[in-house]
């Protein structure tokens, strides 16, 4: 369920990604054309949408490079209730 929402957020911050197939292997920079600003916007939205503290998870979120890893990270956080 997180994956569909993450894709929706990606399409919000990078409008050009609407024309692209987005799957777990999609890389933000190489495949989806993310700039550093897009990354900041997506992390902000992930924090707000999934009620995740950006301050607590910033270092990890900055390092994530694919859609699948993002979804997995959100799953992990929600499971442990962080």
């Amino acid at each position: 369920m997180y994956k569909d929402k993450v894709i929706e957020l990606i399409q919000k911050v990078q409008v050009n990604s609407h024309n692209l197939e987005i799957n777990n292997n999609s890389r933000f920079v190489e495949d989806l054309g993310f700039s550093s600003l897009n990354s900041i916007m997506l992390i902000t939205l992930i924090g707000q949408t999934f009620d995740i503290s950006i301050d607590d998870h910033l270092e990890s979120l900055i390092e994530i490079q694919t859609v699948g890893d993002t979804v997995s990270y959100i799953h992990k956080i929600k499971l442990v209730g962080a």
Partner: protein
Amino acid sequence: MRPNIIIDGHCHLASSHCIPFEFFRGVASNTARQITHQGITSNVDSITKMLIAQHSDHMADGLVSQMDEAGIAKSILLAPDFTFVFKTETSIAEIAAQHLEVRKRHPDKFYIFQGVDPRWGKEGYDFFEKTVGEYGFEGLKLYPPCGYSPSDKALYPLYEICRDKGLPVLLHTGPTTPTLSFEFANPYLIDTAAKDFPDINFILAHGGINFVEEAKLLCKYRPNVYLDISPFPVVMSSEGWESHLESLFKQQINHKIIFGTDWPVYSKKKRDQTPNGKSFL
């Protein structure tokens, strides 16, 4: 004709050690305003933290990886001197030393242009002489929005070093972080110095996207003035960057146009530069 090797003429070390907090904070204030208007609630503090976190490639391993993937053989690393106007934890000497270490770690990958604020006086002169002598750096980087004209006579001793050693001078043009003044951002301000030092090649950083008309005219009529096109994907053009560059390349100044990405402001990777699928490289 495709060149034998591709050189990125404008990039930076993506290291928070080299960029002052106030610089990041200014960029963050603009970003916060922009994304708030896109319906995303954020604040300057949070964005500043994210920007700093994105600048953790202190030894350029990530940069070299991107260069390899994009087919860029070498890059010019620019080390601007913000330390005169902003409080910094890292001195300009330490920043130069960091760049030197990066070059040792990645042999044959980087040229380095060292920044010096002319208001450091003799101290700055001696420092610059050391970087181009002992360290072997290859040029001078100026950041006039820090509060000086690139034709200020206080710079002439530095220009004399460049002239004597045959080194280029690259100067920032155009608006920048809002925590600096844009008063000295106009490329025409280089003209007096360019006329006084005809043997130095002056490069208008971002001249292909900021104050483009002025930059084009300087390149056309002043033999020793060049421009770079970094970061072309974000040019303010309703037709997009491809159309903008196509027009620029028709101005008969192609021998004056230098390719540059402005990494980490914009990625070297092909897709990142080409949201519509086209590729520059």
